[in-house]
């Protein structure tokens, strides 16, 4: 369908452009704004795939997550230099690591897509029956059934992961508090 193709290319342009913005803006709040734009464009990708529930959750969770980035900027970053992310020199070694990881990820994705592995995996994981469920019971219901019937153990393990995150948050707050 032509409309979907146009939507895809427009969204792809927005997503890549905003992702570059996240990296190249010098003002941390502008980085944050690009990140929101990027995450919203991903939500629209999910919409074009008719995954309404995932799109909504994407907005709900990441809107909050990016808010935390804002709080990070105002509580942690040096104020005098107008929120510029300074100290690029010290972080130069990360460029190599970042580019290396990016290349590995891109190669892996291209390999999976062009050899048909991705499509095979999707088929093996029962995408066809999932599509049937979505059509009969609705988006959220299908998602919930998959999560709580088929994958309830990973779901609970995710809960444990969140506990660890809580401990991290409290530890971070305490250590910074002790310094002051």
């Amino acid at each position, binding site marked *: 369908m032509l409309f979907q193709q146009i939507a895809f290319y427009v969204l792809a342009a927005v997503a890549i452009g905003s992702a570059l913005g996240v990296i190249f803006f010098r003002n941390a709040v502008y980085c944050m704004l690009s990140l929101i734009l990027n995450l919203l464009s991903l939500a629209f990708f999910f*919409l074009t795939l*008719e995954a*309404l*529930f995932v799109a909504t*959750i994407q907005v*709900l*969770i990441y809107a*909050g*997550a990016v*808010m*935390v980035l804002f*709080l*990070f900027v*105002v*509580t*942690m*970053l*040096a*104020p*005098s230099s*107008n*929120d510029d992310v300074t100290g690029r020199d010290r972080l130069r070694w990360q460029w190599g690591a970042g580019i290396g990881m990016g290349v590995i990820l891109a190669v892996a994705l291209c390999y999976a897509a062009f050899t048909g592995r991705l499509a095979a995996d999707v088929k093996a994981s029962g995408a066809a029956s999932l599509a049937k469920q979505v059509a009969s019971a609705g988006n*959220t*219901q299908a*998602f*919930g*059934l998959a*999560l*709580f*019937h088929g994958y*309830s153990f990973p*779901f*609970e393990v*995710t*809960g*444990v992961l*969140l*506990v660890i*995150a*809580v*401990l*991290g*948050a*409290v530890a*971070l*707050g*305490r250590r*910074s*508090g002790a310094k002051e």
Partner: protein
Amino acid sequence: MPEYVPALILMGLAFLFAVAVMLATFVLGPKRPTHEKLAPYECGIEEVEAPRQRFPVKYLVTGMLFIIFDVEAASVIPLAILMRQLKVMGLVELLIFAFILIVPLVYVWRKGAFTWE
């Protein structure tokens, strides 16, 4: 036609409206800026220091706790609408998940993360 298209149309119109009003603010109204008028509001005195200084890290901790519990709430909602179907099994899953998250809530509470001076 997907069911969400009308919502996208409302989104588009709301966007046009917001942009139109913001553009109108450049056209309407007098333009007589003075130095004092454009200075940041400071109860009439000169500004002593720029506002962008560091704030207590407590705000950040609150934000991080929020993400964690927001993920919990977002996971509970699909479980909630299936509760009638899943019956006791759904209840057990919810209980386990809730227990896993009540423990850190109590922990954070005891550590005083919710107490602001």
